[in-house]
């Protein structure tokens, strides 16, 4: 039997603090559809399964090929990007909910600015002298580069934080993405010059010590970033830093 429709059940909320509600949509089946193309279809015909015209569902997206991290949401209970969620391999009805660990803006849109603020706290950058041409960057082995590249693909999408039992809407836990970025910048020969400042940043409240080691972050990362390795390494490094501080300060 060929499939004729796609059913979507979507949790909606008009504004922060507003009461959430559900809409069900039935769309004509199209081959190779993904969750984004379904949401776009709803924009073109915002009518629910019971015939009610509603406002189009709002969601965030941009690249539609899983490199921008924008369209992260809960799809059939699992946190992931909507663009790579292919209808043909999803159970029907497809249930869409906004991420639960970030404040809802509207419908499937959430505010993840906390993640970007954390990148400021850990000094997530290489302290270059300036953008003028002062010659080559440091020479370093391909092996280190490969390690760094695995970490540098973090899209700040928030999947790891959504899955983390330690990370909540209201606490100040930084979470795996941030710890992994500390490791990333400390791995670079120039970045390592500010290594201690970054370690200190994750030794405060909300830092690495609060990690409960549930290890779910690594399971949901769409880019397969070795997050638990990062956590373990930053854990070791901060312990050493702590000892150093005790002896030297």
């Amino acid at each position, binding site marked *: 039997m060929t499939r004729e429709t796609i059913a979507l059940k979507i949790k909606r909320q008009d504004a922060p603090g507003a009461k959430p509600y559900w809409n069900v949509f039935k769309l004509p089946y199209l081959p190779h559809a993904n969750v984004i*193309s379904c949401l776009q279809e709803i*924009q073109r015909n915002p009518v629910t399964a019971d015939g009610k015209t509603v406002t189009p569902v*709002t969601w*965030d997206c941009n690249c539609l090929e899983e490199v*921008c991290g924008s369209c992260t949401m809960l799809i059939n209970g699992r946190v992931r990007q909507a*663009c790579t969620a292919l209808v043909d391999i999803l159970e029907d009805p497809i249930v869409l909910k906004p991420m639960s660990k970030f404040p809802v803006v509207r419908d499937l849109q959430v505010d993840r600015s906390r993640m970007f603020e954390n990148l400021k706290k850990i000094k997530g950058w290489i302290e*270059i002298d300036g953008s003028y*041409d002062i010659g080559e*960057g440091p020479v370093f082995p391909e092996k280190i580069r490969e390690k760094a*590249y695995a970490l540098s693909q973090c899209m700040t999408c928030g999947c790891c934080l959504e899955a983390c039992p330690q990370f909540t809407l209201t606490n100040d836990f930084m979470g795996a993405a941030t710890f992994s970025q500390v490791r990333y910048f400390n791995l670079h020969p120039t970045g390592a010059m500010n290594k201690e400042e970054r370690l200190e940043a994750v030794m405060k409240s909300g830092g690495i010590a609060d990690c409960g080691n549930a290890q779910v972050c690594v399971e949901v990362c769409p880019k397969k970033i070795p997050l638990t390795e990062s956590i373990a390494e930053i854990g070791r490094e901060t312990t050493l830093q702590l000892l150093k501080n005790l002896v030297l300060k």
Partner: protein
Amino acid sequence: MPKREKKIIVIGGGLAGLSATMKICEFKVKVTLVSFQPVKRSHSVCAQGGINAAIDTKGEGDSPEIHFYDTVKGGDFLAHQPLVRDMCHQGPAIIRLMDRMGVAFNRTPEGHLDFRRFGGTLYSRTAFAGATTGQQLVYALDEQVRRHERDGLVQKLEWHEYLGAVVDGAGVCRGAVVHDLRAGNIFAIAADAVVLATGGPGQLYARSTNSTVCTGSAAASAYHQGAKYANGEFFQIHPTAIPGQDKLRLMSESARGEGGRIWVPRDPGDNRDPLKIPEEDRYYFLEENHPLFGNLVPRDVASREIYDVVYNRKLGVGGQPMVYLDLTHQPPELLERRLGGIIDIYRKFTGQDPSRVPMKIFPAVHYSMGGLWVDYEGDGHGMIDHKSPRNQMTSIPGLYAAGEVDYQYHGANRLGANSLLSCIYTGLLIGPGVVRYCDNLDKGHDAVPSSLFDQAKKNWDNRFAEIKRMNGRENPYALHRELGDLLLTNVLIVRENKKLLETLDGIDGIEARFKDIKCLDTSDWSNPTPSFINQLYNMVHLSRIIAKGALLRDECRGAHYKPEFDLNQPDRFDPHEFIDYLEKKHYGPPREEDYPPGHLAYMQRFEANEEEWLKTTIAQYKNNGPEISYEAVDLSLVTPRPRKYD
């Protein structure tokens, strides 16, 4: 006299916007950075294969001069030459800078930067970070801008959309009007200069490789305010993308740079598993037709060849518009290390592993060579004066443009891995010039009467109130799809005047129906619909620039191909014959017998065509549509000649 505080607004947080912001901050000038989304999610992250710079680490004898020649030739000589030359000479410095900023570029065994081949050149000139180079470059620049943000030099307005420039009675840009996409309110910001780094307009087409924010709306807004728009008809169709419903996902040219081969079965009825088809039954059409460049011919050439094989020769895989892009002969660990990102994308969207099964791909709308007209100032020695306030300024004083939204680096066809370069180059180039422009202003932004900003805000408030009152029958998103289908059908790889005329009629029809739109959502909070309706209005007008430019340009140049005007280059023609012909012309009328049969006539056709068409298309908004005129191209460094890649 106390130095007045300067303020610059940068619109867009992709490579051009971020590098402009970083550079301006180095002059201790405050920047307000406006972006649709967190800048880290900008469309530049979609760039995959790499960034060009002639560093010649492989002893091939590459140089910035050869890079310059490849680029102007790749663009069919439509780009201003001193600009391209300056960009190519800055390439190595840009790569070194990005490397110092921590970009995880792939490295050689000795730990230096590695380079690979790309289209339209015979040299290994492309630095890369796996196959997510754009993403890695954006992140590095995003990090530097975050550092300036911490230091208080950058104020980010993310989730804000640029609506238009604030232009005073003398025609000078004094700020920008922006729309808060969360709260829904509209406000004007005063500034000494505004930089548009808003990317290309891929969303004009129903399906493209572009992100959803790439509507070209900011450029169209500038055009409506009097800025010139140049070379709109030159739209790059990338030869290799995965077909899809919502988007055509790019399969980087680097796949071919790493040995990928394009082929179809010789027999159109051959339905065997591709791996079971022996070499002799495979038609490697790019390699056969272009033995010198093979699979790495420039994109316009490759897309036309694929089009020809699929539609004229009916050789598409399984009768479908698809050809194979084959990497199965390469070791999986090499693919993982050098192409991991795109291999992953292909796997996720098709469920198939490119290291085991040839990928099925087809050309897709990818990049606009055209864009806002911008100025530049040469240094008198074939390069650019980096301090000139004229660099990258649109025809509205104080309004600048950088990155894909400008027009001047890629001529009629962009070479792969040159866009990341031009985006960063223009961003960096803008810095000193725009700061000097601010210094030279008769009065600073804080001395401009507030009534100017109040009026600009009021105009946009009224416009959005009007949009929200629209209560007709047309769905704006469905109408957008129709516009996109129209362009996708008629203004693509092969163009015909009859169809272009129909397109212009079609656009008129869509514009008429636009008035009958229903604003599906009239709430204030985080409501994308009114904003989209405004973008759609802008897209209608941009489409017209593209279609009309294409209709009027009766020739073939780069990505703009009209078979009716093909000059039919003879098979064994050598482009140097044309240089010889130009030389000999000085000594008397050319003689037929000096050249192989048919070649002289071809060269004369070519020369006449260059005389008529080697010029920049300029569109200006007059009477609700584009008025088209033409400007000379700066050809001061290299003699244009017929392109050939065999």
